């Protein structure tokens, strides 16, 4: 290709610079600036800030609510990983290993909640949990279990667990498809050989399917963990706003309330730094923990 250095750099700049400059301004700068804000006391506007050193971090360590928000986040992470992975794996195996005529129907239906707005999902599930009209209480009454009915989202003992259901409901489809993609690449002959060796369905699942789709399982778990730590506050904000009595407060919703509702922007940024650190540590640990030798048969 005949082209001068100047032309070459001109074209590269044309392709890369506008996007990269906007990326620096709207993604990278805010991240570092957020860390910087965490050393300031800011009320109302960015011009009104006073350097306070580590005071926000000291406040965070002594904050009685914050440890609960961390626990709530990890509770959601753990229950979502377990709930989604068990159901998604079951459905993925069922739809790939067994001949089911209507498999495409299930695939299309199960995936749909993945592209619904969290606002719609949250409001829909608020109805399902509604004490008077909701499906859950009506269902319990229909079964003659009136004693079990309660205000699921209004009771601090059940509110957080109640948030797990919509998250699992909305998440299954995507991970089922990811696992199905993995299972479909396993040659049929592996299962035939396992059958000849006398392995039953359950043994085949653990000895053939799981090791061979481990990359997909690992990616799915990582993705659930990341999206939960980075985004669990959205469904919390829609459904409970962290209540009742902070029983569903997660780190992100706490940040939102401190920063944008109470104008404690510096303290909010400190919570944000904690979220950043915790989620990076979690992801690194998980990656290390889930590393397995690549299996080849």
């Amino acid at each position: 290709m005949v082209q001068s250095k100047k032309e070459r750099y001109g074209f590269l700049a044309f392709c890369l610079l506008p996007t990269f400059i906007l990326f620096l301004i709207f993604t990278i700068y805010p991240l570092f600036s957020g860390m910087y804000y965490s050393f300031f006391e800011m009320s109302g506007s960015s011009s009104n800030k006073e350097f306070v050193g580590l005071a926000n971090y000291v406040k965070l360590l002594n904050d009685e609510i914050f440890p609960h928000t961390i626990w709530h986040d990890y509770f959601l992470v753990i229950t979502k990983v377990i709930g989604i992975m068990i159901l998604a794996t079951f459905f993925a195996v069922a739809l790939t290993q067994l001949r089911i005529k209507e498999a495409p129907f299930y695939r299309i239906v199960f995936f749909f909640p993945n592209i619904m707005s969290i606002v719609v999902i949250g409001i829909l599930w608020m109805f399902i949990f509604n004490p008077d009209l909701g499906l859950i209480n009506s269902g319990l009454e229909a079964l003659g279990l009136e004693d079990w009915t309660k205000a699921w989202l209004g009771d601090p003992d059940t509110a957080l667990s109640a948030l797990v259901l919509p998250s699992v409901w909305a998440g299954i489809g995507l991970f089922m498809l990811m696992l199905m993609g993995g299972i479909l690449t396993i040659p049929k002959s592996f299962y035939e050989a396992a059958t000849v060796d006398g392995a039953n369905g359950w043994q085949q699942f653990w000895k053939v399917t799981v090791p061979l789709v481990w990359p997909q399982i690992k990616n799915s778990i990582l993705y659930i963990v990341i999206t939960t730590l980075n985004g669990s506050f959205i469904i919390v904000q829609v459904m409970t706003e962290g209540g009742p009595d902070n029983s569903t407060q997660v780190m992100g919703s706490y940040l939102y309330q401190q920063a944008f509702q109470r104008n404690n922007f510096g303290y909010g940024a400190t919570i944000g730094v904690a979220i950043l650190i915790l989620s990076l540590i979690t992801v690194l640990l998980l990656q290390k923990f889930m590393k397995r030798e690549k299996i080849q048969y």
Partner: protein
Amino acid sequence: METRRVKDAAKQAGIRIPLILWSIAVLFPIVWMFLGSFKSNAEIYASPWGLPETWNFSNYAVAWFDYGLGTSAFNSIVVTVGGTLLTVVLAVPTSYALERIRFKGSTIMYNLYLSAMMIPLVLGWIPLFFLLLNINLLDNLFGLILVYAMSQIPFSVFILTGFMSTIPADLEEAAAIDGMSQYRMLFTVITPLSMTGIITISIMNAINFWNEYFMALIFLQSSEKYTLALAVDFMKNEAQYTNAWGTLFAGLVIAIVPVIIAYAIFQRRITKGMTEGAVKG
């Protein structure tokens, strides 16, 4: 033989029943929402589960006019179309350069974009709030379009570079020998050949922007700027006092129908795009 048949039937049922139950669990709330949107409030209380007695659209009229969902729907369309187009304009040249031109730092830049997919951006929203405030783009649909586009650049670059890597290099060589400039090559050769990828990211991004809630909550303030997600959330807060559930159901339907239509048309592309995006996410 007989026991074997029974065993097989039991196995079949053991697998079918959970599949059917989960289908009901997914579809029932959605159908319930559609039915509820045609019911009066009295009817919702009297028979929350049943079919509506008459199909009346008054809930839709109230939601559209009294709650301003008409304006919000318009805002959502502006933000969705604007954000989607801007993302394409910004992502296509970058993806091409990162995928096809060797230059120093190209891997670093690519990894920088990718790592932004994994980092919690919520910390950045505080400074972003002040940044938008200072450049007069807070409570502004164009400001939200910019923020949205930038939030989807990493995903879009990731998917597009994947698509562009499958375009044969001979095409570019042939075009270069014909004396075509790189600019023309990008617009007249590469862009049309990447159309599948561009359409995929556009559908994914459009659904994302249409559904987005939290950034809109932070960066928009006045109700006439609300997108549908915010307007429906606002209706929900009101409904806790007014009990206007039928209207709220109508609002939810208005918010979800475009997504259902998109899914009906582009089901394959959407599932493929999302699973690929999640692999690296």
